[in-house]
């Protein structure tokens, strides 16, 4: 990261099948690694946005730039082509998005849990908005009680 002149560009993809071609074009332009790969859950509109930030180590002129790709996915069955062949640094981050949000990356070489225990979290995705922690549930009930005029 050189200096504080970071310019951010965004690109929004509606159809997940277009992602590899977009990634290939970006790689040819010099964006050679994935900085972060995460996701945002939108339960109301029933979609998950895959957020990919890419940047460059090799090309000096685009080094301060961070390019953001957003991919709209269906929340019920989120599937997207894997980017490991284009950017190898995406491998572990794709595995994290897989366990936390349940996004399936097609043609990923080794798609299994990276941080969470596979026995405890099989079919459960803790970073989705509908996942409720038991302790948090108690806190929410307390907050509602306070809103409704305290303990009756």
């Amino acid at each position: 990261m050189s200096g504080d002149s970071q310019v951010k560009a965004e690109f929004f993809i509606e159809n997940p099948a277009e992602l590899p071609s977009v990634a290939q074009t970006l790689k040819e332009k010099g964006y050679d690694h994935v900085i972060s790969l995460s996701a945002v859950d939108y339960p109301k509109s029933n979609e998950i946005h895959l957020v990919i930030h890419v940047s460059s180590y090799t090309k000096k002129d685009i080094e301060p730039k961070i390019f953001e790709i957003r991919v709209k996915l269906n929340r019920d069955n989120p599937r997207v082509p894997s980017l490991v062949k284009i950017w190898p640094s995406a491998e572990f981050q794709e595995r994290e998005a897989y366990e936390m949000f349940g996004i399936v990356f097609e043609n990923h070489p080794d798609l299994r849990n990276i941080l969470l225990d596979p026995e405890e979290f099989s079919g459960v995705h803790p970073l989705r908005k509908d996942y409720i922690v038991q302790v948090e549930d108690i806190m929410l009930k307390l907050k509602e009680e306070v809103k409704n005029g305290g303990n009756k």
Partner: protein
Amino acid sequence: MDIAGVAERSIKKILKTLMKPFSPMIDWATKYSIWPVHFTTSCCGCEFAASYGPRLDTERLGSLPFTHVRNTNAIIIEGTITKKMAKALKVVYEQMPAPKFVVAMGACAIDGGIFHNSYNIVKPRDILPIEVYIPGCPPRPEAVTNAVRTLQKRMQTLRLASKQALEG
């Protein structure tokens, strides 16, 4: 009729009655040889190290942090226990020979601390019998020394070591 089982049980009974007069000695001996295993899972480990450093020197109480699980008799849980780590903790605890004691150190080991509403934590009191709690986030090194003293006092007054050794 299971002859071997009956023989084993009767031998155990005889040993128990023979060892009963020595139970104060077992307590006294275990009191000055609390060897906790290193189980550092988060920042409390620094305070644990400081309490065994030159200034406080908890080793003078007969307590020595040790690396080999099978030669230890205490475990100080230093910090957050995740669901993955809880399995390792259980394995470590089961490897230790009786009598054995568990000390929970820090807010995370007591009630989850800052991670109280996380999806991935386990409260150690749900999986192991805990003898002494050390509150704080993280606790001062003096608190760890005090916990060792408390454990020693409890061993003497409640006969914890001989109970586990003879009955467990």
